[in-house]
């Protein structure tokens, strides 16, 4: 975890959960894992505050805990979970585009609560929807809870939400001691049963159930060997806890990026072909594999959406086009079934990542530098003279730009000495681009940039706190006057904000908006870089 990354995590947690939680979280990130006592000691907060902060962090899936051999409990932070907070609006938006408003609100509720039972989430979503229906004044009938429940089941089927990992209970059976490891990923996506839609776990459970679990607890103490299994039985009785499955969302984003790239590179129809192929392979292949399972021509042709159906020869041409141009997004692997095609997911992601980096080089150093950068990318190891020649640039200009890029770590240098003394005259100097290193460097800068923007925005808001407070107050008064219907007074109150103040307020909100919008768009670059790096760093196991 780099310093920049820790700082960003601190800023994010501070913005969403307050400063106390942020300090606890950043301490946990720095220290990897530690016990309650150490956290209290190091963060200089009351033990009460630290406990509250930890509860929040655990509930929001940022911190997990486990029991050490000595019996004490260790807390570990997951920094990546903090960075996902930046993507929350994207998840909600994605749920909306895929499954509609109800799904949007359900996902929003789950994100807000971190972990929650489906019952109360469904109730809250239904209430919200009905409220908005009422306020819009439409005459549509009220939405029933069963409809939302169906939506929830749909979301589970699409793997967008999942069960939380079970918590292993301590000996008393009342408190958790550790978050259990998931051994069977399928278990997390078991469809919700009726019991999952019960509201408020533990509170409304019938007394007989309590008795039962008590008996179970006694049993537990008797036979410790099968403690874990017993616990599972015990857990499955109550409504389970659910959370958003971010990986599936990332999966979807990745597919979306690939489709957009195809649309830009070839045309809209080709992107439809790609979309169909991705949808087909989604259920079949391992989401982490580098290539999808092979898909046959007839399969693709049958699965195309009805309104965008293509002639057989057209589809054939598009597939050929996809496999020839477009950085080999698709390859033909066989002839059976009218031709077997495979999506090269890694190649696609790599190409998209490279084009992102190229754009950054273009914007930072200009088009001439980009020409040299491309020469280095295609020819791997190139001497300075060759770079000049191939990029067709005068030596002086080329030198300047090349060294500038070298100084900013976009390109690297390899020394190859003919003699062991590394004398400069007898040494070859090869320039090259290490894609992984450049991606990491840019990623780090993105983190830094987001953190800077957050600081700037907070500063901007805190500097004008008085004015913003005033605006809030005036708005509250206007709202209350509106309710009473006093129009004359309303105008009077409206004039309390002077024109110059209004201009200032507009300036602030515009600045904040721009900063926030750039946060969102920067996060997309981060997403692509992270996806590319995750493919290179953890190469998935090859299926045999």
């Amino acid at each position: 975890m780099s310093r920049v990354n820790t700082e960003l995590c601190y800023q994010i947690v501070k913005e969403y959960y307050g400063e106390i939680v942020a300090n606890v979280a950043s301490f946990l990130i720095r220290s990897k894992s530690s016990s309650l006592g150490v956290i209290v000691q190091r963060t200089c907060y009351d033990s009460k505050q630290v406990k509250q902060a930890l509860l929040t962090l655990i509930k929001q899936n940022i911190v997990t805990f486990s029991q050490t051999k000595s019996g004490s409990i260790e807390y570990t932070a997951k920094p990546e979970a903090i960075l996902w907070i930046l993507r929350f609006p994207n998840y909600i938006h994605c749920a909306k585009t895929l499954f509609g408003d109800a799904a949007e609100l359900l996902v929003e509720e789950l994100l807000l609560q971190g972990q929650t039972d489906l019952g109360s989430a469904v109730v809250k979503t239904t209430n919200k929807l009905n409220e908005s229906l009422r306020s819009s004044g439409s005459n549509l009938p009220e939405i029933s809870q069963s409809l939302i429940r169906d939506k929830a089941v749909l979301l589970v089927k699409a793997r967008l939400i999942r069960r939380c990992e079970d918590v292993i209970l301590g000996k008393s059976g009342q408190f958790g001691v550790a978050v259990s490891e998931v051994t069977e990923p399928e278990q997390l996506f078991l469809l919700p049963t009726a019991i999952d839609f019960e509201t408020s776990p533990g509170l409304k459970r019938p007394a007989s159930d309590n008795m039962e679990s008590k008996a179970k607890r006694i049993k537990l103490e008797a036979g410790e060997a099968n403690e874990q299994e017993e616990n599972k039985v015990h857990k499955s009785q109550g409504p389970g806890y659910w959370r958003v499955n971010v990986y599936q969302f990332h999966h979807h984003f990745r597919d979306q990026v690939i489709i957009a790239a195809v649309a830009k590179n070839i045309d809209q129809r080709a992107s439809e072909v790609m979309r169909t192929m991705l949808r087909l392979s989604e259920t079949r292949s391992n989401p982490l594999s580098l290539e999808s399972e092979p898909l046959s021509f007839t399969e693709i042709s049958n699965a195309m959406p009805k309104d965008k159906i293509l002639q057989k020869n057209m589809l054939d041409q598009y597939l050929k086009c996809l496999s020839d141009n477009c950085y080999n997004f698709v390859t033909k692997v066989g002839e059976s079934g009218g031709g077997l095609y495979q999506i090269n997911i890694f190649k696609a992601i790599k190409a998209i990542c490279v084009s992102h980096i190229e754009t950054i080089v273009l914007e930072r150093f200009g088009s001439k530098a980009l020409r040299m950068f491309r020469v280095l990318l295609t020819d791997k190891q190139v001497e300075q003279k060759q770079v000049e020649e191939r990029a067709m640039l005068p030596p002086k200009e080329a030198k300047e730009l090349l060294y500038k890029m070298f100084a900013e770590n976009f390109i690297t240098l390899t020394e190859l000495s003919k003699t062991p003394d590394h004398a400069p005259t007898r040494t070859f100097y090869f320039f090259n681009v290490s894609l992984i290193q450049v991606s990491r460097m840019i990623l780090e800068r993105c983190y830094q940039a987001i953190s800077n923007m957050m600081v700037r925005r907070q500063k901007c808001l805190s500097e004008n706190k008085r004015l913003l407070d005033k605006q809030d107050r005036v708005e509250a008064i206007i709202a209350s006057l509106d309710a009473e219907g006093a129009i004359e007074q309303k105008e009077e109150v409206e004039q309390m904000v002077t024109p110059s103040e209004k201009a200032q307020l507009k300036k602030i909100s515009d600045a904040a908006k721009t900063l926030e919008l750039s946060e969102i768009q920067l996060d997309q670059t981060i997403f692509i870089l992270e996806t590319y790096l995750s493919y290179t760093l953890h190469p998935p196991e090859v299926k045999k």
Partner: protein
Amino acid sequence: MSGRGRGRGRGASINLEALGLGRGEILPTVAQPPPLYPPLLFKPVPLVTTDDYNYILNLKQELRESFHKSPYFIKEPNKVKDIVRYSDKYQLGLNDSSTNWMPDWTRFPSELKEKVKRKRAVHFVKPNIKKAKVAQVEDVSKLLEKLEDTDAKSVNMEEVEGHDGDEEDKKKEKEEGEEEEEEEVDDEDVEEETDYNLDYFDNGEEYGDDDEDDDEGPTY
């Protein structure tokens, strides 16, 4: 001095031309640190603003608002700015957001559970509203005599008091017992407060305030 011979001409062995510098070119001298805000050579491209992005932006702002309102946002208790006020203790709404979240303890370690304080039975100390007796001249002289007596017979007095003293001790023990119970109830409060401010030093001002100590048994 054997190193000298080999070291000669070391500077010249770096062929500047191999590094790409021409014969006439002079290396630029760097005499000062780079400027804090170097001029931007390339202006950044404007942000993309589509409907989708605006929607996501609104979502982000709403989501942040709702996080701020949620019980998971822990506000820092207001820092004491100038002086500690008595009313600070009774300021409501500092952490009331945290009260409406009830964790399901089967999913959290027990050590995170705040011990619930038993409400302490409030013992109202009765204010002493008896009017002070107006000392009469005779009383004063009697009192003086008595005091003289006590001074003289201090040794004897202790023997006489022995019996009553036992009773008093018992009373005290009882009271102490009660106090201990109270102390157990709010252990944490006591932990936080040290006894630095308590004044054990008796400056003798309370000496002779017999009239107010009527309940504590007879005086001699």
